[in-house]
């Protein structure tokens, strides 16, 4: 059995606020890029499951040609192999006329190209795309079941995977036959830091790129994005309540909140 883990390379979250509308529009963003933080949990789980169930693991990322640092991070953590999908295969030139479903289709095709993958693990969300759409699209394109926000993989036995998943209203234990796509929650594990040996191995790894001729996908344009802009800045004029005692401060704050009618 093979486990595929989907990894996106995304801006360092601390630098996200620096991104200007013009940079977002052009896609030429001048920030440090790292592995999408949510995807570290998926990578950790892939490594752990590969150990537990004697499986192989492969990390797949769709991104610009040559953008492989996130994949190297996954390899350094201990994922077995890595593959880059050149994003130009889903872009018609204008990235704002390309949608998430095309990305999902390309990733689904890349999964198929890896052979006997029976489990695809993904993060919960990308910190740049913020959609939570890709894993659903991948499952749909593959025709596989999808489980989201999985907090624990209990077992894989006789072709059936049992997991625990959380949603807003509670927790469920679920069993489903493989193959399946699973997005993981952060409760699932504590991602390891790459070891020195891992980093050395990853730096020498050969990461193949799948391009236009390799996967049967077409750009789809079901949506058009426009008017990229920064949200309005919050008017940051804070009113600090002083007083001789903490009770006095609290009373003033309560007055203000009652006046604002938010209570």
């Amino acid at each position, binding site marked *: 059995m093979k486990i595929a883990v989907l990894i996106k390379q995304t801006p360092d979250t601390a630098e996200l606020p620096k991104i200007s509308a013009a940079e977002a529009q052009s896609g030429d963003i001048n920030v440090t890029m790292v592995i999408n933080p949510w995807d570290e949990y998926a990578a950790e789980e892939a490594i752990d499951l590969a150990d537990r169930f004697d499986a192989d693991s492969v990390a797949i990322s769709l991104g610009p040609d040559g953008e492989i640092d996130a994949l190297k991070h996954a390899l350094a953590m201990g994922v077995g192999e890595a593959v880059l999908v050149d994003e130009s295969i889903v872009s018609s030139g204008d990235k704002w006329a390309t949608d998430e*479903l095309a990305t999902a289709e390309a990733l689904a095709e890349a999964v198929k190209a890896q052979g006997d993958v029976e489990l695809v693990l993904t993060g919960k969300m990308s910190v740049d795309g913020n959609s939570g759409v890709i894993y659903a699209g991948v499952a749909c394109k593959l025709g596989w079941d999808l489980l989201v926000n999985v907090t624990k993989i209990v077992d894989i036995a006789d072709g059936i995977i049992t997991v625990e998943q959380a949603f807003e209203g509670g927790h469920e234990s679920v069993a489903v036959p493989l193959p399946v796509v699973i997005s993981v929650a952060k409760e699932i594990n504590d991602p390891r830091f790459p070891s020195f040996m891992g980093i050395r191995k990853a730096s020498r790894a050969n990461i193949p790129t799948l391009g236009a001729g390799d996967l049967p996908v077409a750009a789809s344009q079901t949506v058009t994005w426009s008017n990229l802009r920064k949200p309005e800045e919050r008017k*940051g004029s804070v009113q600090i*309540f002083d007083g001789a005692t*903490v009770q006095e401060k*609290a009373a003033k704050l309560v007055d203000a909140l009652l006046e604002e009618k938010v209570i």
Partner: protein
Amino acid sequence: MTILVWIEQNNGEAVSSCWEVLGKAQELAAQLGTSASALVVGDAIDVIAQEAAGYGAAVYTASSPALARYRLQPYAAVVEQALDASGATAFLTNATLRGGSLAATIACARGGGIAANASDLRVDGGQLIATRSIYSGNILADITFNSSLAVASVRPRSFSMPATGAGGGSIQALPVALDEASIREKITDFRAADTGEVSLTDAKIIVSGGRGVAADPEKGFALVGELADVLGAAMGASRAAVDAGYIPYKHQVGQTGKTVKPDLYIAAGISGAIQHLAGMGNSKVIVAINKDPDAPIFAKASFGIVDDLFTVLPALTEEFKKRLG
């Protein structure tokens, strides 16, 4: 032609953010010259169907023991059936874990364009336009649809609750031909969230605690909880507090936690890191309680108290008790 809204239900109760979406759908439908419909899926869902009809929507129901609990595969099949029955040109859900993945699955199955986690929907020039954020709230974008079906999942609390009692809705049951044996996913156990706990994403008021409680975390979060109780608020936390094990993960607000939009967000002992602000920066009123007058949270707050949270929180709880009776 209609705008179809999925009404999420748990244990026979509708998730309230769905009504916000339904209300908005009715407004949009009026501008587009179409109608708004609701889809209620489950088992024993009459009460919710009545509730939806009470808002004046044309309600489709799909009821079967096999649909009692949400499972993506059969639910998506029923949504597709409802799309066909209603001739819908738009499908809307609330952007919960389920609503988000159901919307994405339907978009994919139908080749529809999707606006995920939309924070606004409007009509301009006869066209539906969705606004959503990317880069964790740092960039906004408008989305228009080129497909015959437009799909959007809508963030809870983006729109106000519609007025009830408009009435005039109809209820139509869809024929459900579902065979439990054909559903691969089996739910073997279910545990509801603690009863009485207010859901973070739907909360009007949130009281959150951070690493500032470190001197006595147990007491600190007990104080956060007491204030939350008086206000009928949900309890939130920073990642630092969650990572330190002061409170479970599900309370985390921020980049890698929940995105919330309450009327009032009270942050106690939280510095206001960018990743925390990403989750709560759209709150209507932010109150910061922090010992450090230079904490970055004050730059985003409307009101603040510079003092020790271990004395401020109980004082606030007392004061609210007095005023709210």
